[in-house]
């Protein structure tokens, strides 16, 4: 009994890990299609023009991160103490795709998080101006 509970626990952990890895891989492919030409493969962006994603304090606010991918960004933002005043258009991505890209960004280039962003979470983010 105890053993079977243990296995149940183990398999659910593995299941979550697989889900996370799959989401990360899908996110990487989407990143390479939709994000890479501005934010670059190493997430460093472009000095003065495109904010970095690597080690970016902006990403600590996951809600704002998802909002920016889902609805775009207009006007000034500050990332790691540097002000950027540019525009990022919304990309017309599905909620599950936005979840995948967010999971990729939040776990790349030195970024780490325990949070796994889901399609339902993205769906729940409503537009605020």
């Amino acid at each position, binding site marked *: 009994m105890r053993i079977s509970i243990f296995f149940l626990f183990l398999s659910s952990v593995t299941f979550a890990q697989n889900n996370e890895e799959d989401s990360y891989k899908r996110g990487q492919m989407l990143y390479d*299609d939709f994000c890479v030409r501005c934010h670059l493969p190493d997430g460093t962006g472009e000095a003065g023009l495109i904010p970095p994603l690597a080690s970016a304090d902006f990403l600590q606010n996951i809600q704002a991160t998802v909002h920016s991918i889902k609805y775009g960004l207009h006007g000034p933002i500050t990332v790691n103490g540097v002000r950027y005043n540019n525009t990022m*258009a919304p990309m017309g991505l599905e909620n599950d795709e936005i979840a995948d890209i967010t999971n990729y960004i939040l776990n790349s280039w030195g970024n780490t998080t325990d949070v796994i962003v889901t399609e339902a979470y993205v769906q729940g983010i409503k537009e605020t101006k």
Partner: protein
Amino acid sequence: MTTRYLSYVFLLQVLIACAQPDVTISTPDHTNYTIDVIVPDLEIPWGMAFLPDNSLLIAEKEGQLIHFQNGQKTNIENVPTTYVRGQGGLMGIAIHPNFKDNNIIYFTQSSSVGFDKSGGNTALYRAVLQDNELQDVSLLYKAEPNTKKGVHFGSRIVFDNDGYLYFTVGDRGNRDVNPQDITRDGGKVYRLRDNGEIPTDNPFVDVSNAKTAVYSYGHRNPQGMTKHPVTGEIWTHEHGPRGGDEINIIQAGKNYGWPKITYGKNYTGTTITKDKALPGMEQPLYYWIPSIAPSGMAFVHNSAYADWDGSLVVGSLKFNYLERLTFDNNRVVYREKIANQIGRVRDVVLGPDGFLYLAVESKGICKIVPNP
């Protein structure tokens, strides 16, 4: 003998090609113009075209076709649904050369029309504009297949002096399959008659299985195209990868090389190809390193700016200015920034009044007015 001669010619071409002189862009200390926002509150004004009454059609990437007249914006009705994804949206607009008699306009948009379950590709439409409504909307061309890839849709529209329509479709993120294959759409400049028929002298009409609307191939993502006001040639520019944005003069049946030759690299910095020139492939008239992300293109001719006539202007999405280039025998000899830091310049046209109009993302349509 002939072969040896040809290879010498080719070698010479390569030497000339690789020896593009460094023309560093200038930032003038003093500017002699002001910038007026004449149409505010636009998101991504991707394309624009003036009507004979000096009113303006504006394509918002999200799908709205706007008629700006007497200071008022009106959304034109009956525009087909746009497949908005990544770089795709409502894009180019052109009016028929005889618009004043027939009211015909053309536009390109990413569209999910077709047999594929999902995704989209570039479509060219024609319609009659009547009282701010589209009538007789007809699909003249739809690039296939649909794909969920978010990049490289093209798509500008230009008429030449003989009444042929040209439009562009990018490689749709499938660079190793589309641009070099004339039996597939993508990575091409197309030429059609004004009614959508394929001209009988298009270069690939006799090639089995070819997409016979194709006029030139080997392109990556041309988001700028214009007619030279003196020679009547069709000029394009296209986005390179990391470096290697190009200006080209389009000629029938020519191969512009992507991705077999390029001056750019992958975004990761790795090599796409070691070749910058190959036999049978055209060299760009000019290439940008680093990339400026060019969008929109116009010649300055009979303009309100005496000093600028003869220049080419190109919007820069990346560096937030309009770039002005001057030529000596089709060689770029000077480059400067206009409207520096204005924002992402998506399109530029020379209005019938001789003024330059810029479509700037998150800002609107801006007019460059020379100071008295």
